[in-house]
């Protein structure tokens, strides 16, 4: 690099660490199955997560069929219904969303976006996937054991989770706990890799404050996961002992069928604390990568830098820190000390501040932008709407007095589906439409994509909007059937039927999306080199799709942040991160000084 003539900001510190010692595969088996390439591992993670997610989708249909048309389906009894609820919840939160965001997008994007050849320890990364797969298989196996999977609800609260009368208390609960522990072990292996790669293996010139927000979101989410999963791990272990060895960690003295049980002296509330010490950070483990990715999708498609980049970074960090001190807002009705409720309501409202700040910044990014309504952009916009919707109902539930009447009603179901179901899944769809060309070299079919988007987006409102109303009139959640009750009017039953129809239609649209994924692999339009004109490093690789080692012979050198869109003075409306200022094509009559003048 000739630094004598180049501007000051083209000077980049020299390489600090030697080239990564990569494993080069020799056979089909080591290249595609037991692969140590983060990109292949990412695809393996995603395929497994989406497959198990399909199971969860089908379970949600079955639940909705029962709720919408009670007494119509012989093959759904009350025990089945509770099993569907439990498995749907656990699969969606842990095995689909966590695995897809961190194992899938994390593995694919981290090395590419920070300019590394791979994760720092590819072998451990590979183990991470295989243990995840094992966890999923153990989970699936619980469908085939006597008694079926556990029906304890996804929160698995003791004592009922391991007592007779709860479906799956023979083997289902044991397999569920074992699967969770395996998942945590596998995830820890991957998570350590993601964090160390981001902290210690960035490209020359890639400072933390030049990283795309996608990486910031995944980074902080992974840190949360590494500190939150231990609580679930220990809680699972202790409940396993309560179940198998009849210890009494969580089990108080109880009488069953007139006989005193061998349990005594344990604390069921302890489990709730441990579960939610994991469970609340888990919400942000899912939300933060979504926040990050949606920031990049909005910026790229508005051709404008993200508004308040530093504020966005600190908001992610702040949300991450606060996520550990809000857990007991899930436990207002658990019987814990009421002063706790006061403390946790306060922290819950405080965490809304950085979250709201991010929403404002997304909207301000759009303001006066050159908006391209591409499919990823549509999903990103849908994310803002659904997330604001779910966030505002969160303020209702975060306050103790408002929460108590709403607790365990359909309002809660509507709230968390909107905020951590629909909203992050919108981002997942947007991200898949955005990065599919990078993975395959082809675009997803636009017509099918539009159909998928509009049905999913409008359908999500058709499903969850009425649920808020059902919750307000007091329709409880997790009830197999409502029966004859005075406070539930007939119209509520009609509404339930409507929701079910909407859910089935939205579910069908997902099949169109899956078909699109396979169809476009062969038949999609061949993508341009950088179809969205993005600045980040993953689009600047030597080959597209990127090959093993990501960046060809030379690693990229980073000269700027990820958001140089529509820079005044530049001819093109974006400047890739690895383009030196001296290489930027200037618009007519402009000088290098004009480029720097507008830098924020």
């Amino acid at each position: 690099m000739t630094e004598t003539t180049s501007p000051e900001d083209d000077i980049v510190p020299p390489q600090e660490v030697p080239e990564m010692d990569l494993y080069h595969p020799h056979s089909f088996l080591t290249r595609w199955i037991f692969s140590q390439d983060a990109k292949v591992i990412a695809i393996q993670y995603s395929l497994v997560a989406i497959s198990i997610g399909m199971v969860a989708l089908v379970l949600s249909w079955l639940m909705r069929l029962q709720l919408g048309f009670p007494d119509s389906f012989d093959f759904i009894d009350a025990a089945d219904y509770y099993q569907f609820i439990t498995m749907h919840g656990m699969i969606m939160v842990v095995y689909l969303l966590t695995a897809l965001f961190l194992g899938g997008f994390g593995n694919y994007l981290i090395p590419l976006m920070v300019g590394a050849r791979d994760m720092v320890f590819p072998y451990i990364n590979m183990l991470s996937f295989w243990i995840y797969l094992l966890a999923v298989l153990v989970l699936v196996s619980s469908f085939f054991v006597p008694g079926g999977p556990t029906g304890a609800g996804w929160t698995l609260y003791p004592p009922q989770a391991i007592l007779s009368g709860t479906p799956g208390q023979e083997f289902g609960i044991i397999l569920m706990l074992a699967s969770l522990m395996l998942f945590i072990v596998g995830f820890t292996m991957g998570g350590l890799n993601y964090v160390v790669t981001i902290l210690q293996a960035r490209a020359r010139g890639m400072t933390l404050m030049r990283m795309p927000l996608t990486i910031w979101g995944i980074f902080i989410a992974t840190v949360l996961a590494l500190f939150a999963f231990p609580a679930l791990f220990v809680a699972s272990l202790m409940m396993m002992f309560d179940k198998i060895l009849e210890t009494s960690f969580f089990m108080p003295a109880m009488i069953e069928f007139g006989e005193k049980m061998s349990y005594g002296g344990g604390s069921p509330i302890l489990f709730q604390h441990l579960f939610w010490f994991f469970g609340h950070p888990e919400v942000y483990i899912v939300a933060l990568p979504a926040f990050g990715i949606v920031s990049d999708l909005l910026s790229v498609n508005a051709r404008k830098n993200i508004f308040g980049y530093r504020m966005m970074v600190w908001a992610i960090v702040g949300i991450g820190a606060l996520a550990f001190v809000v857990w007991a807002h899930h436990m207002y009705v658990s019987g814990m000390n009421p002063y706790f409720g006061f403390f946790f309501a306060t922290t819950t409202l405080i965490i809304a501040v950085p979250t709201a700040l991010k929403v404002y910044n997304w909207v301000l990014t759009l303001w006066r932008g050159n908006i391209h309504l591409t499919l990823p952009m549509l999903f990103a916009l849908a994310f803002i709407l659904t997330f604001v919707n779910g966030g505002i109902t969160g303020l209702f539930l975060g306050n103790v007095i408002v929460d108590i009447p709403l607790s365990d009603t359909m309002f809660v179901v509507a709230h968390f589906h909107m905020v951590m179901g629909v909203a992050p899944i919108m981002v997942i769809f947007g991200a898949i439409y955005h990065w599919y060309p990078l993975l395959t070299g082809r675009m997803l079919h636009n017509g099918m994509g539009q159909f998928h988007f509009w049905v999913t987006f409008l359908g999500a409102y058709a499903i969850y909007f009425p649920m808020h109303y059902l919750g307000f009139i007091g329709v409880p959640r997790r009830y197999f059937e409502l029966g004859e009750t005075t406070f539930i009017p007939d119209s509520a039953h009609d509404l339930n039927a409507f929701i079910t129809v909407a859910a089935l239609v939205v579910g069908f649209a997902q099949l169109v999306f899956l078909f699109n994924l396979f169809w476009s692999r062969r038949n999609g339009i061949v993508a341009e080199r950088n179809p969205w004109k993005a600045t980040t490093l993953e689009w600047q690789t030597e080959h597209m799709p990127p090959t093993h080692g990501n960046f060809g012979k030379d690693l990229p050198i980073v000269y700027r942040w990820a958001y140089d869109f529509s820079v005044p003075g530049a001819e093109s409306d974006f400047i890739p991160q690895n383009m030196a200022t001296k290489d930027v094509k200037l618009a007519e009559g402009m000088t290098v000084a004009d480029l720097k003048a507008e830098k924020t």
Partner: protein
Amino acid sequence: MSQTASPKSAESAADPGRIESAIQDWSSDQRAFKNVPWGKAMMWLFLLSDTFIFSIFLISYMTVRMSTKVAWPNTSQVFALEIGGVQFPLLLIAIMTFILISSSGTMAMAVKFGYSKNRKITAILMLVTALFGLSFVGMQAFEWTKLIHEGVRPWSNPFGAPQFGSIFFMITGFHGFHVSIGVIFLFIVARKVWRGDYDTGKRGFFTSRRGNYEHVEMMGLYWHFVDLVWVFIFAFFYLW
């Protein structure tokens, strides 16, 4: 242990303070922790995550000890060893603690000799550490056997609150598992040091990567952590 006294201070004329230089490192490119190899960073992060596991074990133990209605057994009686008709409270635990802390000393020396590439002495010190670790696990097995003979079970025990047994087996078991894993890896790394794998740059069997003497230090970090955790278990479970 850590090489915080980096030669970088010689470069800059105005020596920045500790906080300022940390900020400089974090706002630089490529690495947030300068001079920290990947493996060591990963081990630190893992230990931080593992700290959460052990903290939650101990917090759960304290909660359960409060929630149970039955009196907690007197640990100095339960863990007493009878020698020649005299009861020595906590004698075995004291010996175990002494051994584990000594093993930390030999481990620290192994790390020092590792960095001076004295491979025979490094390997011997690691083996000594591993043998200390093995004797710790052995004594733990003896303690378990003794208590099991006296009728202590995870679900009940003759001394008082049933949670005493559950907590005892779970926490010491989980810690003993950590020690055992440590011993296995001590043997593996000691063998590599002895053969000179880190001097010749021989590739690892599984990872096919070249190792170096930083592996000894990573091993050391893990071992000291396991040792430190034991101190907390000793204080909160045995002494209290």
